[in-house]
């Protein structure tokens, strides 16, 4: 037995084989989807390297403040969901619901922030057909936001289940899977913020 010498405080029930299978499936999905986003980032890189100026001379650079606040929101949301998972694993069932609800709320704030960002830039005249610069901006952020939207449905399901107190040390597979997905979506955003907005 691998856990024989470990402290009893760090003891976790052994994962059921079914849970490990599901987690492997999620990892493969995220690996596959990483290739999709990697290809999109590579496309952005090629277009940027080939352009005479980035942003082009007649277009304003993208704002940093609002998407920066959004970055904080989605990172905080990931952290909240992780703490919900931790609570479920360690048997503190009461702690799952508030943390999961906070994750959902922060995710919704992120999406609202994105909507504000798009409307602001659209009003300022940035349209998808204005060359590669707005193409990259709208293409990558909107495609990412669709993944956030899917994640919000997942988090909604997690919150509904947490309200019925159905997550515990031995039963938190759904929470764990959505946690993995949500971290992935958050990590892609951080990368997106750093490369598309800051760089």
């Amino acid at each position, binding site marked *: 037995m691998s856990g024989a010498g470990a402290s009893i405080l760090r003891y976790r029930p052994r994962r059921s*084989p*079914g849970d*490990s*299978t*599901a987690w*492997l*499936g999620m990892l*493969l*999905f995220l*690996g*596959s*989807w990483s*290739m*999709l986003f990697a*290809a*999109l980032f*590579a*496309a952005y890189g*090629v*277009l940027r390297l*080939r*352009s*005479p*100026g980035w942003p*082009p*001379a*007649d*277009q304003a650079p993208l704002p940093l403040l609002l998407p920066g606040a959004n970055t904080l929101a989605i990172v905080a949301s990931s952290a909240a969901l992780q703490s919900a998972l931790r609570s479920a694993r360690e048997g503190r069932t009461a702690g799952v619901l508030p943390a999961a609800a906070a994750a959902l709320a922060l995710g919704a704030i992120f999406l609202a922030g994105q909507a504000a960002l798009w409307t602001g830039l659209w009003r300022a005249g940035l*349209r*998808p*057909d*204005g*060359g*590669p*610069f*707005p*193409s*990259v901006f*709208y*293409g990558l952020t909107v*495609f990412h936001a669709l993944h956030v939207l899917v994640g919000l449905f997942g988090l909604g399901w997690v919150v509904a289940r947490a309200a019925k107190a159905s997550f515990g040390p031995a039963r938190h597979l759904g929470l764990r899977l959505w946690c993995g997905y949500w971290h992935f979506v958050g990590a892609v955003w951080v990368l997106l913020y750093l490369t598309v907005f800051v760089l």
Partner: protein
Amino acid sequence: MHTTEQEDLQPIHPEPEGFWPKYVFSRDHKVIAKQFLWAGLIFLFVGGTLAMMIRWQWAFPGKPVPVIGPLFLSDQGGAIGPATYMTVFTMHGLIMIFFAITPILIGAFGNYCIPLMIGARDMAFPTLNMLSFWTFVVSLVLVICSFFGQLGAAGAGWTTYPPLSTNIGTPGSGQTFMVAAIFVTGVSTIMGGINYVTTVIRHRAPGMTYMRMPLTVWGLWLTAVLNVLFVPVLGSAALLLFLDRVFGTQFFIAGAAAVRGGGDPILFQHLFWIFGHPEVYILILPAWGIVSDILSFFSRKPANWYRGSVYAMCTVTVLSAVVYGHHMFMTGMNPLLGQGFMILTLIISVPAELLFLNWLRTLWQGSIRTNPPMLFALGMVFVFGMGGLTGLYLGATATDIYLHDTMFVVGHFHLTMAAASFMGSLAAIYYWFPKMFGRRMSERLGKVHFWWSAVFITLVFTGQLISGYAGQNRRLYNPYEYSFLKHLLPLNRWTSYSAFILMAGQLVFVWNFIHSLVAGARAEMNPWQVGTLEWTIASPPPHHNYDVIPTVLRGPHEFADPLVKAKLGRDWIGQAEPLLQELPGSSTPAAAAGRA
């Protein structure tokens, strides 16, 4: 994992009741496999019909097409107009690759063989498996929509290169539908790929080590790995092209305004071929695996150097990811980079050759049985050999510059991707038909079908190689407009006749398939007398496959073992069949099958 652990992981679920959950929205991998098989065969027929239209155009340019013309081309006087011709070869390529070969080899036989051959009760994620098929159906609907799209179906070639595939080159909804269909079918493929990879890693029966898996499973598994890794890259290309077409973004449209720069059409080619080269191995690896097994089974000999074949397939899988640039030698690529891609490409022929030699040495001194699966496997070895050899000329930059974009390329990739995959698929269909449907196909018609197909498929694609070597460019509407190609009309006409005869010969298969389905002789448990796990259960297998998950004791090709011959009186032994203990009468199913 121990037996009890696998039993816990895969409990027996009751068979669903009622028509819809049993036959339509089924979660059973065997039913889903048959759904993919039917969808694939129907679209194989559609794609084949489109191919006949192309061949008609090259044999009798601008003349009214018999049968198809009056039905579908009445507005053009029954002939194929230039714009329609573009859509015909585009849809032929896309349908054959994504909606015929992929569902048959990967969707049908991936689903059918993986769980049965590794001793599992079902896929790891049965619901995801069902969703994968129905997502595929959505993409089929998009393909059909494309045919009825305004300004006709997609017409930018199967490679869908911009700027031809943007709104400037192919306006109209047909192309947009097809780009969406590629994305959706990609999602379906990824769902399937995740399922296959997970199932092989997690659901192998106790004792089924990686080095005891049938080579079929190896081929399908490596295919699934490539699918999971590289189909998303195609997804990104399709997504960006879709955005360009529908939302007016400029990822691939080279802009006129110097100050803003522009999109990059070559970028699409990179994304496409990063996927596209692994894709050709995605289409051939399952056939390699299936053929490797069948050659051993019907030579009644262990597969020569099993591990070597496994290593060769793994090496090809890895190398397939780093050679895509050989599709783009002519795009203004730095010659040094081109040389790098050339060397990597030519290195692939080493593991491929190893696999090929293993096939030949498996046959050497075997006691060969010439049943239809074996004939088709041998046919695959032959056409793949021709395809592989002609590939060398295209992998080397010096010769590729001359042969680029000619019919030689078309002949080459049809020999590998079309003829070899076609032969591999048919070997698989003839081989697993008794297990899938519980009935035997006619051996005699199967042999007629083989010789008919083998002769004419070789003639068709050899004709293409020759016309390409003579300089005929691919995709020309009327090659004989060019005076230097005028003399190729008789050659092309003979190639077309071969193609028509090839198509007509498939009627033998259609009749054999349908007739055997309803009136074929009942198949026993193990008609081919082989040892892999799927032949130890009833034909067709019960809903949960294995009453007791078997414990595997040996590899898949245990033939001609003197000890087995002495003890059991036959030349094969089941993978899960004990030998060195008292034989428990008729209680081992494999032993029972041996006597039957």
